[in-house]
Structures are given as C-alpha cells and as structure tokens.
C-alpha cells in the first residue's frame, strides 16, 4: 500500500521533517499489515526495513538456546523499531511478533541510508530520532534490570 | 544598668531548705565524678556550687527522660527547681521548645514539665576545656529563656530576674533586696568579660554558626571518613547533647506507647522494614549528625541546634573533636 507525506505528518515520529523530506520518505515506504501471531522478524535475522507501528500492538523479546521466547517488552502505536537495519551488520537483536492484528509503515533501510548520506539536515534529524529511540530503550531496559535485581 | 536582687547566702540556704518541703530541687555540685546535678536534701545544700561550669548532664534530661510512657496520664508531681544551669543549656532548650511545643502537635508531657519547673541559671565564671558557646553567639551567662540567673559573690547570692515566673518567685522570698553595691556589680561585669575573653582566646578561628552549615555541606567524603575512623556508634554524643532529641515509639499492650530516646548514630536508625538502610555506612551516619545540626535544622527552626557546650567532645570514647574537624574544614 502506498504512503503519502500527509500520512506521515500524522505520526509523532516524523515531526520536524520538511515537506520535501517527508516526500522522500514516503517514496521509499509502504504500509504492511499483519495478523495475530505473525512474526515480523526473528532474533539474528538480517534486517532490510525500519518500521513505525501504526495500529495494534507488538511484542519484542529474545530467544534462549532451547528456542524458548522471552517476552521483554511491548511496542506501542507510534513507536519506531528495527533500528538495527540502519547500522552494520544489520542484524536484529530481538524478535518481534504481533499480539493483535497490526499495521506498520515499512521504510527501505538501504535507501534511507543513502538519503542520510546525501542530505546532512535529513541525516542529522533521522539519526537524532533513532538515537532518541535507542536511548529510551536502554533506559527502560536498565530500569527493568534494576527491578529484577532489587526488592 | 543591670538590675540585680540580693540576699545573704545563709538566708538563701534557709530558703532552699524551706522550699524542699514543696519542691523537688536539683542543684549543681562537685564530687569525685566531676560537676553534675544532685537531688537536693538538707545535707546537700552546703555542697551546692555556683558559677563553676558546668554540670555534665544536659538540661534536656530533665524534660526528655530516656524512657517515658506517653499514653498514660501525665503524673502529678511536685513542682521542680533546677539550680545552676549553664547558659548553653538554657539556649538549647529553645530548640526543644520549638519541636515539642509546636502548635499543631504539642507534647503534653513536655509541656507539663516545662510549666512546673523553675529554672535558675548560673553565670559561668571560667570555662571548661571544650566550651565554645561564644563562637555560636551564646554568652556564658543568661539574659533570657531561664527564669532567674544567680551569682554567688562575697557571701551574697545575687539574682537577675529573667521572666515573670522568676519575678514571682523572688517576690515571695523574705529578705530579698535590690543590689546597690556598685563594687559587686563591677566585679560581676569583670567576671563576664574575663570569661568571654577566655572563650575567645581558646576558640580563635572557630567558624561562627552561620558558616558551619556551608562548611559541612561542602565537606568531602574523606573528611568524614577520617574523623569517623575511631567512632563506634556508641551514641554518647547524642545522649549528652542538649539539643539532640530523636526518639523511638515502642508499642506496649493496651495500645500504650513508650517514648525512648534514640540516636542517629546507632546502626539501623534509617533501616526500613524491607531491609534497605540509607545510612548503612558508619561515616554516612557520622556525617548525618553534622548535616542535621549545622545545615538542616537551621533551615527548619529559628533556634540554634548546637550551643557550643563541648560535651560531645568530652563524652566521645573515640576522642573525636568536632572543633578539630571544623578547623580542618576552614
């Protein structure tokens, strides 16, 4: 399904981009739909797209050696994920699966990286947003860890 | 010109003997154990000393017993007279008044003791080794807060009236006359001045009270670790301090409560039910007391939280000297 700049304007993650930059992103994006218990990607998969969740709820976690899935967190509407697709070696650190039927915006990571290199302003904005997401994820993970380690 | 009243010492001793019928009297005496309060009986009267600093027991002990039942009826007791209180203790009582006579939550037991006690302060002619009241703005003689101040000089007992209660007491004594002998008044002034001079000389360089707050707040961890090296958390400093009042409420059957003096120096003072203890390490407890006295209480209360009496230095079995600490912080 095609994506337009107006579609992106409604999503908090894409605020601050210029109209031209939004057009660029829209051109390399598409909307994907998933059913319940669909796996978007597995831990250690090579990732080619980054995503923003539009509707529904996804679970994120890691797998143990015996293939047991540990559910670590929930991805909520509006959140950006699959950031590993932007950075070498492009390998996912976790699996992501649907909890409810879901709709995501999928952005071609290779083309996104090309745009980041071409346009400094776009590159800075995009990297800042990704850094912000990862930083929050790290903070939440530390909090979760401290919860387990202490009373 | 300061107004004094006077009476011959022999007459005063007779007055005391008469008062014993209706009052419990504690007075400062000297013994093999040092200067301290003693419960007065007719035999003790001749041993009462005046103007020599200072009783080891702080005044707070008369108002805050180590242990008391705070849910039973406040017992009817004889009115009390405490004779020979140094001014450092008198000033320290102001902080206790602010805490225990607070309008929203006032302690009936403390109030009763305050109401039924007459406080006779004794001007200090001379100092003890660790006295430093003047460094904190406290004079070695009372000009308020107590009911009377007393000086023994050349066979005369000379009184300064400091409150309505004191005025009332004096007016009932037969034979009390205004002091007119200018010589005696000069001697009193001289003694005041020389005591202050001794204090200034002994405590040169000690920071004044206002500065202490900043000094302890900015002090580094190494200072606390250094000075608490010999501390064993015995709590002597808090027990003997005229302004330390932290306590525990202990439950007894029948929903009775016993209030018992506690100390922030004891391990577990801030331990919570789940086991966490913010002051687990000894040097943090040591620092806590300084922060409380010099930084935090001054923010909360208008009365001074350290009167410079120096008892904590004398009492410490680890020989920790707070004045040495402050001199190092400067």
């Amino acid at each position: 399904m095609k994506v337009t700049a107006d579609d992106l304007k409604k999503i908090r993650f894409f605020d601050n981009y210029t109209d031209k930059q939004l057009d660029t992103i829209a051109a390399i994006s598409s909307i994907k739909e998933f059913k319940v218990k669909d796996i978007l990607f597995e831990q250690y998969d090579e990732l080619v797209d980054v995503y923003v969740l539009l509707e529904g709820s996804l679970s994120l976690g890691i797998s143990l050696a015996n293939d047991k899935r540990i559910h670590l967190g929930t991805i909520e509407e509006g959140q950006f994920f699959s950031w590993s697709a932007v950075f070498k070696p492009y390998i996912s650190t976790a699996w992501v699966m649907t909890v409810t039927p879901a709709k995501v915006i999928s952005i071609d990571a290779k083309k996104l990286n090309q745009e980041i290199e071409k346009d400094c302003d776009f590159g800075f904005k995009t990297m800042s947003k990704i850094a912000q997401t990862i930083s929050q994820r790290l903070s939440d993970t530390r909090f979760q860890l401290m919860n387990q380690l202490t009373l | 010109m300061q107004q004094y009243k006077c009476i011959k010492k022999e007459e005063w001793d007779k007055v005391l003997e008469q008062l014993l019928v209706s009052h419990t009297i504690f007075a400062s005496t000297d013994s093999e154990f040092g200067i301290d309060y003693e419960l007065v009986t007719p035999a003790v009267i001749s041993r009462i000393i005046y103007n020599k600093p200072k009783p080891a027991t702080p005044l707070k002990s008369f108002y805050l017993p180590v242990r008391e039942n705070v849910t039973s009826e406040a017992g009817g007791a004889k009115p009390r007279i405490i004779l020979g209180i140094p001014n450092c203790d008198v000033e320290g009582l102001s902080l206790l008044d602010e805490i225990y006579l607070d309008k929203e939550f006032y302690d009936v037991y403390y109030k009763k003791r305050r109401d039924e006690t007459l406080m006779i302060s004794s001007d200090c002619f001379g100092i003890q080794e660790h006295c430093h009241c003047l460094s904190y703005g406290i004079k070695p003689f009372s000009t308020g807060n107590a009911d009377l101040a007393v000086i023994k000089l050349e066979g005369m007992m000379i009184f300064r009236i400091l409150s309505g209660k004191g005025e009332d007491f004096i007016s009932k004594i037969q034979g009390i006359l205004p002091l007119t002998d200018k010589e005696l008044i000069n001697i009193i002034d001289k003694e005041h001045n020389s005591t202050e001079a001794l204090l200034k000389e002994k405590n040169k360089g000690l920071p004044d009270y206002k500065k202490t707050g900043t000094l302890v707040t900015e002090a580094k961890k190494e200072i606390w670790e250094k000075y608490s090296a010999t501390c064993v958390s015995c709590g002597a400093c808090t027990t003997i301090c005229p302004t330390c009042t932290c306590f525990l409420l202990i439950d007894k059957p029948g929903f009775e409560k016993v209030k018992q003096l506690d100390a922030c120096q004891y391990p577990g003072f801030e331990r919570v039910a789940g086991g966490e203890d913010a002051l687990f390490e000894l040097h943090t407890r040591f620092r806590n007391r300084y922060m409380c006295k010099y930084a935090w209480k001054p923010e909360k209360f208008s009365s001074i939280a350290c009167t410079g009496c120096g008892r904590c230095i004398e009492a410490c079995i680890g020989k920790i000297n707070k004045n040495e600490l402050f001199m190092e912080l400067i």
Partner: protein
Amino acid sequence: MKSKNIYKPIKAKLTEVIDESPPIKTFVLIPEEEFAFKTGQFIELSVDGIGEAPFTPSSSPHVTDKLEVTVMKTGYVTEIMHKLNPGVFMGIRGPYGRGYPVETFFGKEVLILGGGCGLAPIRSLLYALEHIKDHLEKVILCYGSKTPTDCVYKPLFNRLNNTDKFEAYRTVDKPDEEWSESVGVVTSLLNKIKVNIANSVAVVCGPPIMMKFGTIRLLEMGYKEDLIYLSMEKNMSCGLGKCGHCMMGEYFVCKDGPVFTYNELKNTPDIWK
C-alpha cells in the same frame, strides 16, 4: 492548641481482610472515633503491643465511616498484621502530613504513574479525583508491576476504563501465559498515552527506582518541576515532626510530605535511596 494526646492511638475494629496478591492484603477498619483524612496523607497503624508502621489509606477520603489500608508483608510488624483475623482492634494515629492538592488540579489533565504497592495511595487519589471529575479534563493511570500476580486491585482497571474521562493502562516486567496487555517498564507506557503536557500535572508513586526513572521521563516529556508530585516514603515513625527518623535533608517527610513536588526535592541529595 489541641489537648488530645498526640501519642495515643484511636482504636479501630478490623472488619475484613481482602487478599490482593500473595504478599499484599487490604484491611478494612472501622475507627471508634471520628476520623477523616485527605488523600495522600498517612496514618500510623499499630498492632496492639507489637508495633506500628506508616500507611497511606487506599480508600476514598469521602467515605468516613470506614477506612481501607493496603499492607504489603515486608518486615516484623507487617508479617504479624498479615496473621490478624477480623474482629481484632488495631490502633490508628493520624492523619499526618501533606496530601495531594487535588483542588489545584481543576481544569487540568492528571497523569498518574504508579508501580508496585504504590497503587494503594493512588487508588485513594483516584477515588478523590472521581469525586471531582466534572472539574477535570482527563485522568490517565499508567501502572506497572513485576508480574501479573503483583498487580493489585485487579477490578479497578476495568472500572476506570469504563468511567468517563478516565483511562488506565497496565504493564508488567515479566508476563505469564495469559497476559495480553503491555510488557515492559511503566515508563514505556508513556509512549502511547496522549496528554496535553502544557495543561497537565503528574503524580508518581511507587518503589524508589520507579520514581527515579519515572521522574526523569516526565521531565524529558516537558512536565514542569513544580507540577510533578512525588509520594516519598521514608521511615516515618512518630508522624509528628519530632523523632527525626524521616528527615530527608531539611524536610521532615511526615510533616512537609509525604507528597512533595519535584521542585522541592531536586536539590536534596539521596532522595531515591
């Protein structure tokens, strides 16, 4: 000046004990004397002859004939409390401290961040807010517990989501097989809520770690320091501003708190210990 003895408790009959989760029970008490509190204030609840401990009532401040106190089994006194049966008398001293200033929330959106046993005082706050909901824009509760079993007052969430102007979201650190709601720490719920920060106040109540991370996130989101309300639990003992056990810097938590704004605490060291 009150002439009542400040140390003497009033008696209250324990009429019901509700099991919330393995370590948590709610006690329903009927005080023998008139007793009223403001939401966020605390009481010292005692077991006859054993000891007392501070608790923030979890019932509505508008219900005055009975009182509910949610108790987590943590130490000596609470362990004995958990063994009590209805019919015994307990002692109550209080109410003490500064509660939540709900009158200042009029016309605003209220975001509540709760964790673990912090839901107890929050439940009382929610009742108080429900009482004045015509004057509020919106109330959002984000609550996190370690596991689904640790989540107390389970029926509360459904009820809130069916109440006009209220929204409630739950998350757990570690889900079980049946859990279908969010997983992760409570701050991650802040990603999905919609709130007008310029016209909002935030209330945070839970374990120290949660309060620390929660406050950091709220500040990042743009909440003003004097509009973040923190419920500081700190070893309250006498409740009267006298015994010194709850001193946190220059504050007595029992008198100046337990509800503080972040603004008041930001320069006080070690508040999260």
